[in-house]
C-alpha cells in the first residue's frame, strides 16, 4: 500500500491547482529513503534467485552441469532448460496472440549472447550468486549474425506498414537542382534506469503477488496470468515507485517468469534482482539503425523530394520496428515523398522501447540532412526550416491541432542569440576550442488511450485518488492530486494519491507519453462526479443545512462549502459529512466510449495497446514540437566535444505542473546529450557479446557533462489533444538533441558526423 500525501506547498497558494508549480508530493518519501521500491518490500522467508546468462550468441544448450552449484551452501533449486516449467504463450502488448508453443523462460535454444539459460535459488543473495558462478553450461554453437555491419546480415524483411509515399519522389529527386544523399547511423542504446530490473514473486494457492517495477501493472499482470493459466484477478502486481524505466519496464520479461516459477516450486517468496551487466541483455534497448536520406531541393532551399530507406536490427525471436520515417514524414512540407523500412533479424535480445522510439533516430536523420542541405545552398539552418515549414500534416493531409514550432524557433533563437551566428564552419573559436552553434527540431505524437480512476471524499474532509497507473518520476502522484484538488475544491495537501497496484482501478501503459493526459482526464471526470454528488447531497439531503435554500448550486473551495451570496454560513466538508452522517463519497469513472465499456473491450483497453488511438484519428494531427539550440566547444587537438550552452523551446500544450514538466524536459535533453556524445553498445563480432555491459564502459552523461539548460514553454492548451489541454511531455525533449549537437559540431569543425555517438576519435 502506498499512499502519498503532500507535505507542504511551495510558492504561492495556487500551486496546488493544475498548472501550479507544486513540488512533487512523493518527494519527501524519496529524499528520506522511505520510498520503498518494488523489490525492497520486506517479506518473511524470502529466498534469492540469480540467473546465469548464455556465453554464446547462437546454438543449443547441450547440457548443464549443476552438481557443484547444487552442493553449494544454501542452494535450494537449480532451474535449467530441462526442468523449467513450460508456461503458456501470452498475448502480446499489441493484443495479438503470442508466439505458438509454450513460453520458455530458460530456453534450450540460444538466440543471443546474454540470454538467461539457468537460474539458481539459494537462501541468501551471496550463496545464490556464488553458486551461479559454479554452473557449467555446454553448448552446441551455430553461426550467428552480430550486427547490422555483419556481412551475413543481409537486407532483412520489408515492413510494409512503414511504407509512406506521395507524389513521385524518385523523379522529383532526379530532377532536383540540389541533391543531398547520405547515410545516418545510430548504435544500440540502452535504457539504463538506475534501478535495475528485479522482482519478488509470492504464491498463495493459485494467487500470485508480484512486487516488480512496472510502467504498466495491468498489462504485465495479464502476461503472468496467461503464462500460468490463472485468472487475471489472481495476479496482483505492486509497483509503488519505479527507479526509472524509459520504456524498459512496460513488459513482463523472462526473469520475472523465472522468479514466479521458482516461487511456486519452492512455496517461498523469491527475489530475483537482475545484475547491472545482465540488464544489458535481460531486455532490449533501442536497436541499432541505419538510414539513407536523399533530399532534393531548389537552389533557394525549397524541398522538392525526400527519399528515405531505413533499417533497424531486431532479434531472431521478435519483430521490433523502430519507425525511422516517423519524423521524416511530418516535419517539412514536401510535395514528393517516399519512405520504406526493413528490419534485420540477428542475434540480439529483442529490442524494446527507449525514450521516443522511432522519432529519436528518425530526427537524427532528417534534422542532420536538412542541415547539410542548408550548408550546400548557403542558407541559415534556421531559415531553411522556416522556409519548408509544414502548415498542415504533409502525410495525413489534415490540419495540426496546434503546432507551436514556429514560436519555438523564434523564442529559442531569441534566447540563444542565434542571429549573432557566423555562418561559416570553423569561424568561431576560443583558444584551442572551436565553437559551433547548431539547431534542430523535434516532435513526438500525442497518443491516447482511455483511463479509469476512483475519487473518494472522506468524512474527515480529505480525499483519495486511486489508479493502477504509475509514477516513475514523471509526476503522476503530483498532477493527479492537483487535478483532484482543483475540481473538488479541497486543498492539495488533503488529497492522497494511491498508484502502482493492479488491485486499483485500471490504467493503460505509462508509455508513449500518454499517461498524464489520460489520467488527469479520468481523475477530472471522477472528481467532477464526486463534487456533483457532494453538492447534490448538500442541496437535497434532509439533514443538510442548505436544504431549505432552494439553490441550484453551491461553491466548494478550500475544503469549504459556501452558498453563492452568503445566504448561509460556510461549512467545511468534514463538518458537512458528519452533519449528514455520510462516511464517504466514492466515484469510479472511466473515459471509455460507451461501446467499449463491455468486459472484453475494457480488459483489452487496459492490458494491451489495442485501443491506443493514432495521433491522426479524429481529423486533427496531434503532436508536440520542440526546437533545440546548441553551442558546442570542440577541442581542436583532442576532438573532445562538450556542450557548453543550450536553449530549448518546447510545445507540450498545456503544462499541468510546469516545475515537473521542465524537469522531464531537461531530463530528456540530458539523455539526448549522452546519446549524441557517449552512448553505444559495443558488440564483439566474434560472439555478439555486448562487451561494455556496465556503467563504467557504457557511458551515460555525468553531472559534469551538462551545462546550464534553458527550457522555454511555447505550448498553448490543445483540447483536441486531451481533455485538459496537454500534449506529450516526457519523450519529446530528447528528439532532435543529437542532430542539433551534430549540426553544431559541423559548424565548429567542418566535420559532419553521421554515426552516433560523436566520440573524439571521429573528430581527430
Amino acid at each position, binding site marked *: 500500500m502506498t499512499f502519498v500525501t503532500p507535505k507542504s506547498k511551495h510558492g504561492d497558494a495556487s500551486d496546488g491547482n493544475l498548472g501550479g508549480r507544486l513540488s512533487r508530493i512523493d518527494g519527501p518519501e524519496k*529524499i528520506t*529513503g522511505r520510498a520503498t521500491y518494488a523489490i525492497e518490500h520486506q517479506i518473511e522467508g524470502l529466498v534469492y534467485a540469480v540467473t546465469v546468462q548464455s556465453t554464446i550468441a547462437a546454438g543449443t544448450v547441450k547440457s548443464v552441469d549443476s552438481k557443484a552449484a547444487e552442493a553449494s551452501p544454501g542452494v535450494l533449486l537449480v532451474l535449467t532448460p530441462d526442468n523449467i516449467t513450460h508456461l503458456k504463450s501470452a498475448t502480446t502488448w499489441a493484443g495479438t496472440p503470442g508466439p505458438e508453443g509454450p513460453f520458455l523462460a530458460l530456453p534450450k535454444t540460444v538466440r543471443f549472447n546474454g540470454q538467461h539459460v539457468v537460474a539458481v535459488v539459494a537462501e541468501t543473495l551471496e550463496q545464490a550468486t556464488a553458486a551461479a558462478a559454479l554452473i557449467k553450461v555446454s553448448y552446441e554453437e551455430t553461426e550467428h549474425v552480430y550486427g547490422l555491419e555483419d556481412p551475413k546480415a543481409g537486407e532483412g524483411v520489408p515492413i510494409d506498414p512503414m511504407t509512406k509515399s506521395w507524389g513521385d519522389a524518385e523523379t522529383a529527386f532526379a530532377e532536383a537542382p540540389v541533391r543531398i544523399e547520405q547515410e545516418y547511423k545510430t548504435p544500440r542504446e540502452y535504457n539504463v534506469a*538506475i534501478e535495475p530490473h528485479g522482482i519478488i514473486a509470492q504464491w498463495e494457492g493459485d494467487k500470485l503477488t508480484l512486487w516488480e517495477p512496472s510502467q504498466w501493472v495491468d498489462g504485465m499482470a495479464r502476461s503472468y496470468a496467461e503464462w500460468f493459466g490463472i485468472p487475471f484477478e489472481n495476479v496482483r502486481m505492486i509497483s509503488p515507485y519505479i527507479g526509472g524505466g524509459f520504456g524498459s519496464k512496460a513488459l513482463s520479461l523472462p526473469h520475472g517468469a523465472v522468479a514466479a516459477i521458482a516461487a511456486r516450486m519452492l512455496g517461498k517468496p523469491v527475489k530475483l534482482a537482475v545484475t*547491472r551487466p545482465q540488464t544489458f541483455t535481460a531486455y532490449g534497448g533501442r536497436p541499432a539503425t541505419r538510414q539513407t536520406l536523399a533530399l532534393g531541393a531548389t537552389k533557394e532551399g525549397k524541398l522538392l523530394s525526400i527519399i528515405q530507406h531505413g533499417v533497424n536490427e531486431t532479434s531472431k525471436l521478435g519483430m521490433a520496428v523502430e519507425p525511422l520515417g516517423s519524423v521524416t514524414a511530418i516535419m517539412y512540407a514536401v510535395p514528393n515523398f517516399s519512405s520504406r523500412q526493413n528490419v534485420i533479424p540477428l542475434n540480439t535480445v529483442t529490442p524494446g522501447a527507449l525514450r521516443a522510439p522511432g522519432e529519436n533516430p528518425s530526427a537524427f536523420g532528417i534534422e542532420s540532412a536538412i542541415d547539410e542541405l542548408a550548408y550546400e545552398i548557403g542558407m541559415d539552418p534556421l531559415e531553411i526550416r522556416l522556409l519548408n515549414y509544414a502548415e498542415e500534416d504533409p502525410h495525413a493531409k489534415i490540419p495540426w491541432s496546434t503546432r507551436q514550432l514556429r514560436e519555438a524557433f523564434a523564442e529559442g533563437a531569441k534566447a540563444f542569440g542565434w542571429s549573432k551566428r557566423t555562418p561559416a564552419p570553423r569561424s568561431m573559436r576560443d583558444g584551442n576550442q572551436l565553437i559551433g552553434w547548431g539547431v534542430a527540431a523535434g516532435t513526438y505524437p500525442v497518443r491516447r488511450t482511455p483511463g479509469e480512476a476512483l475519487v473518494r471524499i472522506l468524512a474527515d474532509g480529505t480525499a483519495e485518488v486511486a489508479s493502477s497507473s504509475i509514477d516513475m518520476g514523471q509526476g503522476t502522484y503530483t498532477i493527479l492530486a492537483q487535478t483532484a484538488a482543483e475540481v473538488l475544491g479541497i486543498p492539495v495537501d488533503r488529497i492522497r494519491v494511491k498508484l502502482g497496484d493492479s488491485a486499483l482501478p485500471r490504467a493503460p501503459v505509462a508509455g508513449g507519453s500518454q499517461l498524464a493526459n489520460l489520467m488527469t482526464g479520468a481523475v477530472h471526470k471522477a472528481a467532477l462526479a464526486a463534487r456533483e454528488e457532494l453538492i447534490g447531497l448538500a442541496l437535497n439531503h434532509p439533514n443538510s443545512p442548505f436544504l431549505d435554500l432552494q439553490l441550484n448550486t453551491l461553491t466548494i473551495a478550500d475544503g469549504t462549502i459556501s452558498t453563492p451570496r452568503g445566504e448561509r454560513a460556510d461549512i467545511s466538508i468534514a463538518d458537512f459529512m458528519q452533519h449528514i452522517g455520510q462516511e464517504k463519497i466514492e466515484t469510479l469513472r472511466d473515459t471509455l466510449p460507451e461501446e467499449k465499456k463491455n468486459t472484453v473491450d475494457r480488459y483489452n483497453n487496459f492490458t494491451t495497446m489495442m485501443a491506443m488511438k493514432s495521433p491522426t484519428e479524429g481529423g486533427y494531427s496531434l503532436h508536440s514540437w520542440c526546437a533545440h539550440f546548441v553551442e558546442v566547444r570542440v577541442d581542436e587537438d583532442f576532438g573532445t566535444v562538450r556542450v557548453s550552452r543550450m536553449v530549448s523551446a518546447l510545445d507540450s500544450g498545456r503544462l499541468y505542473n510546469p516545475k515537473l514538466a521542465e524537469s522531464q524536459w531537461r531530463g530528456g535533453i540530458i*539523455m539526448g546529450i549522452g546519446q549524441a556524445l557517449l552512448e553505444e553498445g559495443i558488440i564483439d563480432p566474434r560472439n555478439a557479446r555486448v562487451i561494455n555491459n*556496465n556503467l563504467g564502459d557504457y557511458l551515460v*552523461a555525468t553531472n559534469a557533462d551538462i551545462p546550464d539548460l534553458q527550457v522555454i514553454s511555447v505550448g498553448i492548451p490543445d483540447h483536441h489533444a486531451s481533455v485538459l489541454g496537454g500534449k506529450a511531455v516526457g519523450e519529446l525533449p530528447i528528439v532532435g538533441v543529437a542532430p542539433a549537437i551534430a549540426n553544431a559540431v559541423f559548424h565548429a569543425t567542418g566535420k559532419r558526423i553521421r554515426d552516433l555517438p560523436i566520440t573524439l576519435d571521429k573528430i581527430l
Partner: protein
Amino acid sequence: MTGTINLKLDINGRSRELAVEPRVTLLDALREHLDLTGTKKGCDQGQCGACTVHVDGKRVLACLTLAAQVEGRAITTIEGLADGDGGLHPVQSAFLEHDAFQCGYCTPGQIMSAVACIREGHTKSDNEIREYMSGNLCRCGAYSHIVAAVREAAEAAS
C-alpha cells in the same frame, strides 16, 4: 548458514547487530539484513554512486565496502541524515524545492554525496559542484537541478 561472523555496526547512531558471511557488503547488509533500503543498489560495482553512505563522515560506496570492514566506524545512511524528529536536512529540503530528482532512485546517494561535497568545500563554483557530484549518475537527468540544490544548500551553510 556456514561461516557467518557476528558484527556490531554503528549505523545512524544506533548499534545494530547482525550475523553475516564475511563477503557480505555493507550495501547488502543494509538492504537485505537491516531493513535500511534507502541506500540503493544501481550497479553493485562502484560505477553509479547510488549506494553512497558516510563512513566516519566521509562519502564512500557501500557496494565496495565489506560490512565487516566498517565495524567500529560510524556509518550514516540517508535514513539517519536528518534529526530524529521528522525534519529534513537542509540538503534534502533543497532537493525538494529544486526538484532535483524524478524517479528518486539515485536520490539518496545524490543527497549523501551532496552533504559531503558541501562539507568538503567543493562548491566554490557550479563547475566544481558538477565535477564533485559526477560520481552519482542520474538517468532521469536531474543534474541541473541537483547543481542548483547543492549551490543553495552550500550558500545557506556558509
